């Protein structure tokens, strides 16, 4: 008999579980639970398993659950996946939504730091929202082993609904198109703010993603933001086409590991090999009116070098970069935040703008100097984002 298996086992596994499900034709339900939290949650785990079997109208099943302290949303994802591996049932099994996953993002919010979380590792998702990242990425692509791609979708879907990521923008990196289109039904209806499209090479891939989103949500225009990641020479040459392919694209990111390999270069700390590509991404993004975002810095221990790299990146025009560890978030946020001088200057411009508004004047000026509209707009943005930042800090802490 076929067994449906999902989840992880082994001594180092924590906050996760392993489920093995076989469906038979006689004998009713047999549910074996071995849990390190048996005394506190053994009954609750059995209840959940029974609830899911009832939900899918399965009358005869043998379930083995090895639990290492998985939270209910993790157990539910593993149980559902194990069942779906052995029987053709379509509908999702959803636990009640938490309120915090209802908040929505905005187009021009800060995207200084985005923290990558492997999509099949529940342990590190639980507190990911506490470290101050502007965005968290539940990753279905490179950090998930091929044989785990299917089960990761259920975990990511449930994480979107049940983990409080605080003020962070909730992002999912799907797999490369076309495979990534199959990830969309698991994320689009469930509260994702932004979808990262990896290894993006042309505008058509954006169109395909948007068509899927619109179909899934039965809408004409996608309310969900996109951030294509350009990771190849071809992608760089099509950068502006990609950046301007749809109005729901809010940023373009560059992935330098793959890009360097693609052009036959070694990725270096100085980054001379990718200078052209990075500049193209900055220019294409700015031309399309969206945010250019830099790659990740992969040596977690080197905080000093991270700072240097982030400051250089900001100097090139980028507004943020990826994080592979929470320890990188603070430095990255700091490097991409406006400095005190920039804030003061922006405040002066905003004050002048407000005075002009009051007086009904069309021209904003400080002293005898006229301020151009784009500069006013940028200053307004800087101040508004700074307000949001300080408000977020208070909320995060209270």
């Amino acid at each position, binding site marked *: 008999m076929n067994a449906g298996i999902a989840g992880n086992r082994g001594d180092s596994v924590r906050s996760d579980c392993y489920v093995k499900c076989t469906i038979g034709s006689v004998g009713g339900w047999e549910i074996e639970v071995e849990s390190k*939290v048996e005394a506190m949650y053994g009954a609750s785990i059995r209840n959940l398993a029974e609830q899911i079997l009832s939900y899918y109208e399965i009358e005869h099943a043998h379930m083995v659950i090895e639990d290492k302290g998985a939270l209910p949303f993790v157990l539910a994802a593993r149980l559902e996946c194990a069942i779906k591996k052995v029987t053709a049932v379509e509908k999702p099994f959803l636990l009640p939504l938490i309120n915090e996953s209802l908040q929505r993002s905005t187009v021009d919010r800060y995207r200084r730091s985005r923290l990558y979380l492997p999509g099949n590792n529940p342990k590190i998702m639980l507190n990911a929202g506490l470290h101050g990242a502007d965005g968290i990425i539940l990753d279905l692509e490179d950090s998930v082993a091929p044989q785990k791609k299917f089960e990761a979708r259920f975990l990511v879907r449930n994480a979107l609904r049940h983990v409080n990521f605080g003020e962070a923008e909730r992002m999912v990196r799907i797999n490369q198109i076309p495979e990534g289109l199959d990830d969309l039904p698991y994320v689009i209806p469930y509260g994702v703010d932004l979808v990262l499209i990896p290894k993006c090479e042309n505008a058509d891939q954006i169109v395909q993603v948007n068509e899927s989103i619109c179909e899934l949500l039965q809408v004409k225009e996608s309310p969900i933001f996109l951030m294509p990641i350009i990771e190849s020479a071809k992608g760089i040459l099509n950068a502006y086409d990609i950046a301007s392919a749809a109005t729901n694209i809010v940023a373009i990111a560059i992935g330098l590991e793959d890009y360097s390999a693609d052009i036959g270069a070694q990725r270096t700390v100085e980054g001379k090999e990718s200078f052209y590509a990075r500049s193209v991404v900055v220019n294409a993004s700015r031309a399309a009116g969206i945010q250019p975002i830099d790659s990740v810095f992969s040596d977690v221990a080197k905080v000093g070098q991270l700072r240097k790299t982030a400051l250089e990146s900001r100097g090139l025009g980028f507004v943020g970069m990826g994080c592979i560890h929470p320890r990188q978030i603070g430095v990255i946020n700091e490097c991409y935040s406006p400095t005190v001088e920039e804030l003061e200057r922006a405040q002066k411009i905003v004050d002048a703008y407000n005075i002009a508004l009051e007086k009904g004047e069309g021209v904003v000026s400080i002293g005898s100097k006229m301020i151009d509209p784009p500069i006013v707009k940028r200053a307004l943005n800087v101040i508004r984002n700074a307000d949001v930042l300080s408000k977020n800090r208070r909320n995060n802490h*209270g």
Partner: protein
Amino acid sequence: MVKEVRNAVGRYIPEEINGKSVVPFQGVGKFRPTGRKFAPRIATCADYPNDGNKLVASLKEALVKAGLKDGMTISTHHHFRNGDLIANMVFDIAHDLGVRDLVWFPSASFPCHAHLISYLKDGTINRIEGSMNGPLGRFASEGGMKGVGVLRSHGGRYQAVQDGEVEIDIAIIAAPTADAFGNATGDRGPAACGLLGFALADSQYADKVIVVTDNLVPFPCIPWQIHGNYVDYTVVVDQVGIPEKIVSGTTQITKSPDRLLIAELTARFCDEVGIVKDGFSYQAGAGGTALSIGIYFEKILRERDIKARFIRAGSNQYPVQMLEEGVVDYILDGQTFDLEGVRSMRENNNHVNTSPFTSYNYHGKGNFASMVDVVILGATEVDVNFNANVVTHSDGVLLHGIGGWQNCLFAKCTILPVPLFRDRVPVIVDEVTTLCGPGELIDVIVTERGLAVNPSRTDLLEKLKETDLPVRTIEELKEEAEQICGKPAKPTFTDDVIAAIKWVDGTVIDVVRKVDRR
């Protein structure tokens, strides 16, 4: 069945444990001892060699000469932590001699002592009066021990010996360096562990004292942390402890981002309420989070060019570096956790070895614990009344000792930095499984999702109003933990008491019952 009475924190306590009557916990500072301290027999030099040579051929011979027999109380110490070889050796000998019903009175036990489970099973050992960690705790929780275990804090152990609650028949003090007279030190030798403070009470009050060493030096052994004048016999063995397992406390700063977050929040709290200032003092724990908090304190001190007056430790390389670079005046050390700590104690007069008598004994004329400005401690559970548990897990199984934890609660500000939940197990609960420390002594709980201040600390709450620290109520934290994890069921127990939890004054604050495995 023994009658049970309700103590001052609402826990039901048998009136008698191990055939001795019990004083139930009466409240902090409420129990008043009367009478005089315990006194060992008067010895005379006429019975000891004039040349000071108390060496006997083997540990077995020393134990036989000390009169080892059924029912005796035998003490050992945890200076070698998980590298201890002597406790197991002592009970191997007792077992070979056919001695039964011994009471083992260690200052703490470690996983290396799981070897003794077979002696608890066959009746060589009746019970353990001391911490029961890991395998020993599980064995006791399942009802495997014949007598009832008794857990005491480091200070409570000194108090129990001083007050005569526990009469030690034979104390075996394993020493990294000693002379034939019995003078001993922990700061040098192949098994150097720093100090021998946990054996102080035993040397002073035990009927017979045996010093065991693998590094015998000619008289005098300087410094003499243990005075030979208390010692009956000295023994040389090949090895007293495994060096690499001796200094094995958690001496790494945590890399866990979640714990770093808690550490940073704790340090910010201490700073913003004005605890971190010139001349302040703190207790540095051994855990990764506590270590990291120490690093944050150090950073603040250096930035402002101010100094701490003393650190109570658990020392390791970090406080040592602070001492050597003048960021702190003194380390008052109870145990050293790495070789840097051992070296510093040996070389630096301002790195002082302390004992449970000076630091923790509640039946003395004061102690150091209450003079510390801030102490950082752990807990397995904390409840909405700020009561905390350090000995059992939420499934009811006994897995840890008390250590100096209860004694440290008397600091001016007691902070427990804990995660809101571990895996799926909430740490903030409605009622602790085992109550080891009353909430009135616990001031602040810091979690990754905010901190809660004991409502009785209106002074701290007032200061926090001026800050943007994430202050929550303890109930809110409990609610959030249950929202994430689900409401935990309570473990089920039988009526059988497997261990008593003593308070620092010798009263019983709670008991641990046998887990029900139905």
